[in-house]
């Protein structure tokens, strides 16, 4: 399953010995060109793998960032597009085992970023529904509760579908484990689901005429109004945790572009959740009631954009994948849609335009989804390239020395 292998293994070995001189220009070319200087490519179990020398390789850091997006070819290693403003930052040198990944990307598929979006949408909608309930906005309350329930249902299906063995999903409920954000998330979702479900049931109870309901169920139906507001408020209290824990879920991994974002990612995600759910409320609720949703939409969008910018400033080289390839396209789309959606929201509020509300709301929702998919894809890409594992660790070694527990008494060996 290999291409470009013109010699036998022995020949390849000797050839390698002859050409592998650390720091030669050939080396740099071979490392930076996505296809390899000699066009040698291997197809591994995870798809095509760049065949690169295991000796020192030089990559452009900023150059790769700028050069991304234009071509699908250079999307994983934009460093191949040389030139530009490469000289602005020192070049990063790194070594790897023939360019093979060190950490493994998560086996998660589109289910997970879709859940990140739907979870945020559900959480924000519950908060808006509770606010609407408390401030006398019945239409927004109703739509918020139904949206939250629909998004939660979708989330559950997506989460179970993504399991390797979906029939064992209930094993998630075996333990409650604080060191596992996924375990914590399971319990947060369970609690949230119970409250959101009760609030939605109360909403349904209001809408269904009594005579449609069998006599046997009249008693439970009479109890629903008592659960109505308390359940809605409790759902809104748990909901912010639903929106923000997903950032910890991603960050608590060795995936370079997720872990290095752990300080800002929860803020990006709650901003994104606020924008998406407010956008949905602008789509589903009348303009007269949706004032708070418009305010939250603009605030959420601005918060998301600011925190995302800050996040990239602190991520170092691992911010690169957010600008390259699929992730780069998604993040650019997210920014454009979020800005446009927020501007449209302001205009819709001023003009009292329903059509503009729907349009802006939809833009904010798609923008939020793009953020989630973009962050997800950037992480996956960062795990596939050893650069993002080696370079940050080497930089830290140079800056601070090896990570050693402060209680260290034994001197480091060798």
């Amino acid at each position, binding site marked *: 399953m*290999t291409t470009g292998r013109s010699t036998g293994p022995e020949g390849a070995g000797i050839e390698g010995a002859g050409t592998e001189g650390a720091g030669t220009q050939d080396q740099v070319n071979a490392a930076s060109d996505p296809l390899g200087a000699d066009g040698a490519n291997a197809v591994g179990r995870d798809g095509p793998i760049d065949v690169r020398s295991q000796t020192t390789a030089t990559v452009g850091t900023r150059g790769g960032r700028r050069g991304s997006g234009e071509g699908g070819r250079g999307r994983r290693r934009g460093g191949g597009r040389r030139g530009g403003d490469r000289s602005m930052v020192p070049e990063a040198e790194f070594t790897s085992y023939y360019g093979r990944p060190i950490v493994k990307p998560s*086996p998660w598929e589109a289910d997970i970023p879709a859940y990140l979006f739907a979870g945020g949408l559900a959480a*924000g909608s519950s908060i808006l529904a509770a606010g609407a309930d408390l401030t006398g906005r019945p239409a927004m309350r109703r739509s918020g509760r139904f949206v939250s329930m629909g998004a939660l249902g979708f989330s559950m299906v997506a989460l179970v579908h993504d399991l390797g063995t979906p029939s064992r999903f209930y094993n998630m409920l*075996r333990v409650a484990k604080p*060191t596992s954000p996924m375990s914590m998330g399971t319990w947060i979702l369970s609690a949230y689901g119970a409250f959101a479900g009760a609030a939605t049931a109360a909403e349904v109870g209001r809408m269904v005429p009594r005579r449609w309901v069998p006599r046997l169920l009249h008693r439970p139906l009479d109890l629903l109004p008592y659960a109505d507001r308390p359940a809605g408020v409790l759902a809104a209290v748990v909901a912010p945790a639903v929106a923000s824990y997903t950032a910890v879920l991603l960050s*608590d*991994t060795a995936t370079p572009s997720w872990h290095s974002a752990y300080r800002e990612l929860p803020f990006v995600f709650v901003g994104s959740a606020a924008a998406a759910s407010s956008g949905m409320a602008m789509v589903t609720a009348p303009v007269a009631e949706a004032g*708070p949703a418009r305010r*939250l939409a603009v605030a959420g969008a601005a918060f998301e954009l600011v925190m995302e910018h800050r996040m990239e400033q602190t991520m170092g080289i691992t911010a690169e994948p957010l600008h390259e390839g699929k992730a780069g396209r998604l993040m650019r789309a997210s920014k454009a849609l979020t800005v446009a959606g927020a501007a449209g929201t302001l205009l819709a509020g001023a003009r009292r335009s329903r059509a503009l509300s729907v349009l802006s709301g939809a833009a904010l929702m798609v923008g939020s989804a793009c953020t989630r998919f973009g962050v997800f894809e950037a992480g996956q890409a960062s795990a596939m390239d050893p650069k993002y594992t080696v370079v940050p660790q080497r930089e830290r070694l140079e800056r601070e020395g090896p990570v050693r527990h402060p209680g260290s008494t034994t001197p480091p060996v060798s």
Partner: protein
Amino acid sequence: MSWTISENSFWGPLDPAADAGYDEDRPKRKGFFTDTSICIGCKACEVACKEWNDVPADHFDMTATSYDNSHSLNANQWRHVAFIEQPKRLVTEGEGQDSGLRGTVDLGMPTVPPTGAAEQLANGADDRPDFRWLMSSDVCKHCTHAACLDVCPTGSLFRTEFGTVVVQDDICNGCGYCVPACPYGVIERRKAPDGAKNVGIAQKCTLCYDRLDAGQTPACAQACPTQSIQYGDVEELRERANKRVEQLHEAGIMDARLYGNDPNDGVGGTGAFFLLLDEPEVYGFPPDPVVTTKDLPAMYKHAVAAAGALLAGAAVAFLGRRP
């Protein structure tokens, strides 16, 4: 089982089995010391592991970069021998001439020297080629602070009485969280071949938990013909490794270094550690890995702050005039 969080539960030196709640009468922590300086790349460890643990054969191709045909540690590869070819001498110039330890030993095998090498040899420049092979049998590190175990939401991954980390196949639901959590890229969800057992479930080295229970040596260490893979009590292996590094340094192999032996490092030291002859990343190891859960308390704090910000923001949005 007592459930306590000790000071070093997230990071720092620790006896992992004691931290997991095993009693005083537990066995000593077991592990591997893989001395790559004497690995000959025979792959007996890979074969023995597959045989004993019934790991399916899957996807053997040459990588086209070296003799490596098993690619990486993964769900179907619990030992992986890395082959690295380098234009470098094993013994540093001018050292180790008298120690009896030489970079290469002439076995009298017929060889086809690389172009140019013949002239070099004829000129009597040196009898050793300007070239070395590094071979290393990689395996799950059985970290003191194992991220895979920390993040597992079902409790399928657990700490054994031997201080090792093992997946319970009948509990794992294949959520896949352990896969991106591992700083070494060891554990993986099995996705092939069709019909193999445990497809859709996280798989990795168990340090032959079943053999340990019976007082046996793990299959790979048992099969290793050069004792490159040494099995034993981690404490004792660490001492042995220190002595071996000293010995190699005396012999002029100044590149020799240990990887994963320090209980104060980013993962609290590993149960399976290595003697390497080059930087860790040359072998496909991360140079200075840190368990991701070291930062988990900080992550939770940020998430709580973000949740609070969302709730406060929404509350402010609802202030003001009513319709």
